[in-house]
């Protein structure tokens, strides 16, 4: 590297810091890249297996590509090849995950370092003031480059055409770079890592909503909105429908603009300062903030609100998409015969809704895991010490966090069930002869179905609690591994033909498949017992061990 020349004084030390950044990300970065690639490749594989003939794909394209709710979620469908279907079903979502990865990387190495004060330490060495920003951007670029390489290798292996694979890989990675620019600006504007991530996620959310409205708009609607969104550009590149390579220039333009603005801002602002003012808060605590429970709720409520908002949107739209799902699945002749035998439209719709509710259960388990491992983060971050030096005992501390985690999971399941029920009910309520009722009863039915997933989600949260108590050093990694295993078993276990023994490990295997499936009290009871037992073991261990 020749960045040490005097002409680049602002960049001195960039090479060293970039290496440091990549070393710190040596696990997270490959994991993201691998998961995004695996998601796309398995989508391609699934489409090839489920819709082997051109006719089946064409029929699917007509129903799937024409369903406004699905267009809202996935975007526009260009063509009916396996590649086109793959890019439609997972292209924008892969770009969203890529953007999330990039935002995390950029903020982590810029604003988060600054907030933690570590950058001060580095900045006092021979390190230029633009070095950290450059290092963060280089780390993000490296991740997106790795994504291009891996996608270009993996997608043709699943049988997709090479040119389209390259176009899709480039579109996803280029959207990542565009969001690197967005994150770089956010890191200069906000005065903390949390605020910076919030800003960047806000832009990502706005990009999704813009293209979702544009994509689902009917004739005469604001279809042009898709062009206003970097996520829209991913589909508009048309990777498998006659690629429009020039769209890639839009991404690069946004990336360059963001980077330029970020450098200009970074050169002008003070260390540690943001350009957006920090709003003052309450000078005294409210009545509610009086114990570990109040504190746990206060610390968790913002996150929960974010999750609830996201879950409400996704499940309302997914619920609305249930209406056309029968004809969509039916376009595969094998599936059509199977489902017709099983009881026609309603059963297919129920199966779809049950799968959706299952996803709500996994989301709730994910939220609860994140909330429980906060205990360990508080312990290592020094926040447990002032708390436990007061009359609040460890048991109250641990139990409060667990309670907030499980209560949050309950809220998320309720929101998911209600939103899916309303979305479905409002679209079917106009009387299309499906035999199901209007919004109110549907919302109540799916609310119940969703809440039946709570014991299983609580088991995952309680397992995280047990790990925090028994194995503090590996608790965070362990808890996420447990969640990952549960998600993998639940989503792919049946398809991969895993043994019953392995399937039974996941608590969701024992949760009722609702709506439509049979309900019995025994499994729910056993799951509750397991959750209570794991939680009790974790809390007991937490009381006995050293903290810190």
């Amino acid at each position, binding site marked *: 590297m020749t960045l040490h020349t005097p002409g680049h004084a602002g960049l001195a030390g960039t090479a060293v810091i970039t290496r440091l950044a990549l070393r710190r990300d040596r696990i997270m970065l490959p994991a993201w890249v691998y998961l995004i690639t695996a998601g796309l490749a398995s989508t391609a594989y699934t489409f090839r297996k489920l819709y082997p003939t051109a006719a089946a794909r064409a029929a699917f394209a007509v129903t799937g590509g024409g369903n406004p709710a699905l267009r809202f979620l996935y975007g526009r469908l260009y063509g009916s090849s396996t590649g086109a279907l793959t890019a439609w079903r997972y292209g924008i979502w892969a770009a969203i995950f890529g953007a999330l990865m990039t935002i995390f990387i950029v903020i982590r190495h810029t604003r988060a370092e600054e907030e933690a004060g570590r950058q001060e330490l580095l900045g006092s060495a021979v390190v230029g003031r633009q070095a950290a920003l450059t290092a963060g951007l280089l780390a993000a670029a490296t991740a997106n480059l790795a994504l291009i390489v891996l996608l270009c290798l993996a997608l043709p292996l699943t049988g997709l055409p090479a040119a389209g694979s390259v176009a899709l890989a480039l579109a996803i990675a280029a959207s990542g770079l565009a969001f690197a620019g967005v994150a770089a600006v956010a890191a200069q504007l906000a005065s903390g890592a949390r605020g910076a991530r919030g800003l960047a996620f806000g832009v990502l959310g706005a990009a999704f909503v813009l293209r979702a409205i544009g994509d689902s708009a009917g004739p005469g609607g604001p279809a042009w909105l898709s062009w206003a969104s970097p996520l829209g550009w991913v589909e508009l590149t048309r990777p498998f429908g006659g690629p429009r390579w020039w769209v890639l220039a839009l991404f690069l333009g946004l990336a360059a603009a963001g980077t330029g603005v970020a450098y200009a801002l970074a050169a002008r602002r003070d260390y540690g300062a943001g350009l957006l003012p920090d709003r003052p*808060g309450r000078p005294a*605590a409210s009545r509610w903030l009086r114990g570990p429970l109040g504190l746990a709720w206060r610390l968790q409520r913002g996150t929960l609100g974010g999750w609830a908002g996201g879950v409400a949107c996704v499940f309302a739209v997914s619920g609305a998409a249930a209406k056309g799902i029968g004809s969509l699945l039916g376009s595969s002749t094998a599936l059509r015969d199977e489902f017709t035998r099983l009881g026609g439209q309603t059963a297919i719709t129920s199966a779809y809704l049950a799968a959706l509710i299952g996803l709500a259960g996994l989301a709730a388990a994910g939220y609860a895991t994140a909330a429980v491992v906060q205990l360990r983060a508080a312990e290592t971050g020094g926040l447990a010490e002032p708390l436990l*030096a007061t*009359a609040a005992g460890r048991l109250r501390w641990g139990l409060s966090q667990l309670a907030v985690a499980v209560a949050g999971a309950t809220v998320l399941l309720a929101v998911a069930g209600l939103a899916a029920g309303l979305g479905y009910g409002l679209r079917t309520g106009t009387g299309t002869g499906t035999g199901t009722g209007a919004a109110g009863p549907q919302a109540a039915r799916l609310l119940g179905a969703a809440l039946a997933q709570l014991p299983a989600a609580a088991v995952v949260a309680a397992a995280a609690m047990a790990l925090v108590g028994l194995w503090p050093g590996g608790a965070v990694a362990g808890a996420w591994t447990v969640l990952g295993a549960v998600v993998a078993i639940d989503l792919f276990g049946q398809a991969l033909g895993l043994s019953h023994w392995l399937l039974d490990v996941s608590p969701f295997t024992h949760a009722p498949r609702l709506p439509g499936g049979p309900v019995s009290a025994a499994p729910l009871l056993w799951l509750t017992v397991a959750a209570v037992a794991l939680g009790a073991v974790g809390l007991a261990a937490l009381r006995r061990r050293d903290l810190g």
Partner: protein
Amino acid sequence: MTNAIEVHALAKSFGRTKALDGLDLTVRTGEVHAFLGPNGAGKTTTIRILLGLLRKDGGTASLLGGDPWRDAAALHARLGYVPGDVTLWPNLTGGEIIDLLGRLRGHPPDAQRKQALIERFALDPAKKARAYSKGNRQKVALIAALASDAELLILDEPTSGLDPLMEAVFRDCVGDERRRGRTVLLSSHILAEAEALADRVTIIRDGRTAETGTLAQLRHLTRISVDAELAGPVSLGNLAGLHAVHMDGPRLHCEADPAALNDLLRCLTETGVVTLTCRPPTLEELFLRLYSSERPTARATG
């Protein structure tokens, strides 16, 4: 019950590292006790055991007459604590945290007292903790501890990050607390702080108690620093108990054992003294001696 803290032969290991290896510490009720030692000596580990955050491997420890591990929550209602490295919840304001910690202790701080401390330390309580500097985070923890009615204050390097002005405020506050009859355990490696505040001192090294006693008692063990300007050259050749003798024409600097002081002064006055400064060693010098070349074996007085 006269001792707020009584620790005897305390031992704690982390893996193969021995953090504490037979530490003794006695803090009498109503005194300000300085707990001194270089970084890594085991001060924070001792405090964490006293707070019931860590479990001791051996020895005995009693805090306010109770067992710090078993009775943790009940004892904590009676003490205030300022950690050495203050971390605060980034999205709570300083004012919220002060209230929260007081309520968690079971005795919500008296609003007037809290307000007075906030003004005394010049803290902006409406700011989010994320925006506070290290010194301001320290102030939040100090105000939370001082505003409580706790019998015992455990302060782990409480002035790190405070500017000299705030350090002075802190000293005044500790003085007030002593007058109100509270017990203070003040861990520090800033010796001037201990000298200014402490009734008694315990110095630890490598997880063991090296010295303990009042400052006067410790000084008794130590040399006195003598600087003199004399009428002419002096010969000290036959005097015992002198160290670090340095003569530059009529100027003399040396360190004298207390027992040698009489003979030294007689010798100096015979030559004729122009100016003379004798001063007790600062804790700094005490420290340097304890932790430099001599490495004496553990001893205890008082």
